[in-house]
């Protein structure tokens, strides 16, 4: 009950705080440069120049406190020892290069990177194309989109039940094992099977991200001028040819944006691994490794070094993504 009250209070304060800031700051600006009197023209143009900064100010401040400042501190910490007191040069980075777990995480992250964006975009495109023209398409879309509303942790819990293993002699409650047994197979401890367990974790993220890809791509598909499709029909193209030669090329920009957006999510994947295997049995990833060193190993130096590696990986994709998204909007 107390949590509910606190949550509502936060929402109310947050929303009304924003509204109040909007009105009060505007009033203050108008009081400072009144849009009337002898200098009305000059005042209006001055106020117009200031106004955008007024609205950006809270965001800029918050971003500085929670993004820019931590970035510099991370850089600083990554050159210091576990307690952050003694300068150690590049020692944390050289340690990284030799660390077995780091290599495993890098390798797994690359694996995630190869599989998840491709699979999510592919399934999203498939779902968008297939649900486009059927009557219950919107219902199907709602169902496919639903996982987006579930937190990564929630999704992980759901899938943990699916992969659940109870052990010999006990009744299997995991969906997958129940199915395997009903077909005459024997139950497996899915999440400990080396190498393949990575894919079992990836399925969770694909399940979530397919909905996102579908919604964006479905909108893009609808934006394709109907006449180009009709012209292709008259030109004799089959439905598959129309899809791959006429429709997909026209939404290529959107596909790239979806792909890279999911790529960034994948590089930061953390909750799923933490909740399902905690990086055991060869499933470690960078973000979880960082979390491990930060809060279990209590080593701010190494954790910061890993954090910066993640950032280095994400930044170029991010820049490309934003460029693409901007080009799409034009």
């Amino acid at each position, binding site marked *: 009950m107390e949590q509910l009250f606190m949550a509502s209070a936060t929402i109310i304060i947050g929303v009304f705080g924003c509204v109040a800031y909007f009105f009060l700051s505007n009033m203050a600006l108008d009081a400072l440069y009144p849009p009337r009197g002898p200098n009305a023209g000059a005042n209006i143009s001055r106020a117009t120049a200031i106004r955008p900064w007024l609205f950006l100010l809270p965001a800029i401040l918050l971003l500085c406190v929670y993004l820019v400042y931590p970035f510099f501190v991370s850089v600083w910490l990554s050159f210091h020892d576990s307690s952050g007191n003694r300068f150690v040069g590049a020692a944390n980075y050289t340690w990284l290069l030799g660390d077995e777990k780091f290599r495993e995480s890098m390798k797994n992250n690359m694996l995630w990177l190869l599989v998840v964006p491709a699979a999510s975009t592919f399934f999203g495109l498939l779902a968008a194309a297939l649900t486009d023209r059927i009557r219950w398409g919107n219902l199907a879309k709602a169902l496919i989109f639903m996982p987006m509303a579930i937190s990564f942790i929630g999704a992980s819990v759901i899938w943990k039940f699916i992969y659940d293993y109870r052990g010999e002699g006990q009744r299997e409650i995991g969906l997958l094992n129940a199915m395997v047994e009903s077909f005459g197979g024997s139950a497996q401890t899915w999440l400990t099977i080396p190498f393949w367990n990575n894919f079992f974790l990836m399925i969770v993220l694909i399940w979530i991200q397919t909905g996102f890809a579908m919604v964006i791509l479905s909108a893009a598909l609808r934006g394709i*001028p109907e*006449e*180009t499709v*009709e*012209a*292709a*029909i*008259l*030109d*004799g*193209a089959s439905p598959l*040819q129309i899809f791959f*030669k*006429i429709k997909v*090329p*026209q939404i*290529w920009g959107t596909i790239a944006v979806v792909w890279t957006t999911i790529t960034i999510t994948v590089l930061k994947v953390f909750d799923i691994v933490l909740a399902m295997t905690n990086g055991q049995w060869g499933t470690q990833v960078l973000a979880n490794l960082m979390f491990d060193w930060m809060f279990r190993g209590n080593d701010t130096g190494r954790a910061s070094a890993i954090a910066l590696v993640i950032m280095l990986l994400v930044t170029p994709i991010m820049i490309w993504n934003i460029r693409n998204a901007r080009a799409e909007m034009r």
Partner: protein
Amino acid sequence: MADLKLTNVEKAYGEVKVLSNINLDIKTGELIVFVGPSGCGKSTLLRMIAGLERITGGDFAIDGMRMNDVPPAQRGIAMVFQSYALYPHMTVRDNMAFALKIAKKSAEEIRAAVDKAAHILQLTPYLDRLPKALSGGQRQRVAIGRAIVRDPKVYLFDEPLSNLDAALRVATRIEIAQLKEAMPDSTMIYVTHDQVEAMTLASRIVVLAGGGISQVGTPLDLYERPENEFVAQFIGSPAMNLMPGEVVETGAETVIRLDHGGVARAAIPTQTADMGMKVKLGVRPEDLAPTEGEPLFTGEVEITEALGEVTLLYFKRQEDGTQVVAKLPGIHSELRRKPVRLSADPKKIHLFHNGRSLLYR
């Protein structure tokens, strides 16, 4: 080489019939224009011929082969869309080559066909450009080129000039006419709402209205001998004047007394039984001329529109709401607010009874 035959063709969306009783014979080499007010179903009819809309009743045949259920690509037709419908991600060359590539033609054959079409349409310098780097007129030419390379039996044009500005529209209209000249064996169907396009391009015009065909005929046929009031008023600009009246003398020529006073003689034969028949007299604005003799119409000019070569006279509305318009050659701005007496050559008078022309009884 293609004859088209539509027999009792109809189109219904569920319960709602938008087209019915469409019977039309189109011969090889004709350029048929579908005209009609917006929403009359002219584009729908074209799309049914193309195969983009299902034909819900009747038969449609090309060269005697029933085409109702033949897929669009196998009907031997090509279509030019109002919005050009170029593939935005392909160069001009690829746009034109697409259909041939789908048909698995050899590379040399494709190249030859595209180069030839590009030459005809003066698109050769633009072959490697994307559509977005072309002007509206060039895009429309690419769309036409895409149709030409397929060497179809029938060309369909769906308001191809509507997206072009006025000057370009005239130029492209002439290009289409020249294209037709160069391909005397191909059949073309052209949809437009622009009368000038219809009158200048068509070998025959099909006027569609109220879910059916109002009249089919050569442009001058429709102009000189409209079958009904709708066609009479739809073809020609400004529209034909229609005035209510009564037959007072029958014979080889008919005399009409108009409800608002005038008397007119029409070169249309009537029988004695037609005496006293209520008719509507139709006369085109350009056929009215000032007269000193017995007038067909007398009225005060309310507005004049001087266009230089002609002057349009708009008369005060009659009590029944009809407005008479006259088109006189030359400049006559001085006639504003003046009473004018008008008459017309009996050969230029049209008579309608219950909306149908007495010529077609």
